[in-house]
């Protein structure tokens, strides 16, 4: 757990909100909430620590789409879930020069959500045909859009204790 503590300290220098969460309830060890500008620094830090990129995706929320990143480590058991809201222009800096696998993940996210990754070498449709490049199928309709707090777990509690109510 030393490594993870050191990682949390370094990440805290980002600055980003880093929470240690209960793996048994959430499936990952660390949750990182940050801004679009800090994403590249996070990626650089994790690249130096031998983390691999599991996926890049997004979730459509109010007020802005949040881009999701999941990293995991080959050596430690440490899985990191990072969320960053896109900038006002709907863009996000790319990490595909540090993690080449992000190339395709970012292309897919752009297909599905319309998030433009600045600096991406070839942001062309991956899964959708060229004529449907602006379809953005995974964006939510007006009435279904939720805000961030609606989809968050019990607010800001230390998630080590299980939530009070359990529906049975």
């Amino acid at each position, binding site marked *: 757990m030393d490594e993870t503590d050191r990682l949390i300290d370094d990440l805290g220098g980002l600055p980003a909100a880093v929470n240690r969460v209960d793996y048994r309830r959430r499936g990952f060890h660390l949750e990182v909430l940050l801004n679009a500008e800090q994403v590249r620094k996070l990626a650089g830090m994790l690249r130096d620590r031998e983390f*691999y990129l599991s*996926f890049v*995706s997004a979730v459509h929320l109010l007020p802005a789409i949040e881009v999701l990143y999941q990293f995991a480590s080959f050596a430690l058991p440490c899985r990191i879930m990072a969320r960053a809201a896109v900038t006002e222009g709907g863009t996000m800096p790319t990490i595909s020069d540090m993690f*080449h*696998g992000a190339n395709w993940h970012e292309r897919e996210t752009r297909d599905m959500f319309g998030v433009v990754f600045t600096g991406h070498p*070839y942001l062309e449709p991956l*899964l959708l045909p060229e004529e449907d490049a602006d379809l953005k199928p*995974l964006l939510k309709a007006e009435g279904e859009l939720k805000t961030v707090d*609606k*989809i968050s777990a019990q607010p800001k509690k230390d998630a080590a204790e299980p939530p009070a109510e359990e529906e049975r």
Partner: protein
Amino acid sequence: MTTATGNQDRHSFFLNMGPQHPSTHGVLRILLEMDGEYVLEAEPVLGYGHRIQEKMGESRTWKAFMPNTSRLDYVGALICTHGYVGLIERMAGIEVPPRAEYIRVITSELNRIGSHLLWLGAFLLDLGAFTPIMYTFDDREQILDILEDVTGSRLTYCYYRVGGVNRDIDESFIEKTRDFIRRLRGRFKIYQDLITDNIIFIKRVRDIVRFTPDMARRYGLTGPLLRSTGIRYDIRKNEPYSAYSEFDFEVPVGTTGDCMEAYQVRIREMEQCLRIIEQALDRLPEGPVLVKTPRKLKLPPGDASFSVETARGELAYYLVSDGSDVPYRLKIRSPCFSNLSLLPEVCRDMLLSDLVMVLGTLDLVIPAIDR
């Protein structure tokens, strides 16, 4: 990444390893820029099988989406479903009875062996050997018969439920599985003689391409290919789920990251699967196989992730819930997607025959990539 026309200096031409091709194992199109027999650049073009599973996940209830998970990586369908039900149980805090966990492990491992056998046959078929596929499919038929008795399906199983499994296994299942374990152990010698010691096979597969740990980290390569590079990473050991922490099995690793090593890793993985199944059968606990869950299952708001080790690598589900009975966002991370993304880097200046061999080693199931 692509050039509009072939580079005139290099006298190259474009060859479409089109959506219909005997070796692409599904509807995958690879645009090849070739110079004679040498591949200068390869660019996979995806989307021919895109069914927007993730949108479907947002319009169906948690339980209604379950059949879709089998259709992702249909060769290892039970393992994919395992990830999904595990995720829902994790979020809802549902405890699965131990007998159900053991049954899940047994059926998942049988599925994994079936998947590796199919890969073996198809890999040799790509290399031009028409006989081994018949032998591996013969073995695979035994698995399909065993699983059909208890699940009702042969390929796209919908056997797991939130809270356990649908039906209990009986004595005949256990007996047939034990017979199968004995039979498969004897068959490994045949595969050794027919394939592994075959000089032409060795010359086709060894020392052609090298997967490195750095490549694995950059592309998110997981599964037997990752283990062939020497990194001992298996979700079943590193982040154990279900009942895997109770079993004693090895994670085979290679050393050089060769295609031959990847082949050996998969063969040894099959042997380890047999070990797990044996231990699970020996220690199978009694008890119920399904707990009652509410008909309209609502998950608390929040997000969660669940990763399983499929035959091809790490399959991860990530879902965001807003408190209702329909997911807000369901993300499916497929191992074949990340594995295929390293093809352009790996197959530069490679012969066409070797490209076909590398595609076979990557072990792709295209519906999992396109989703």
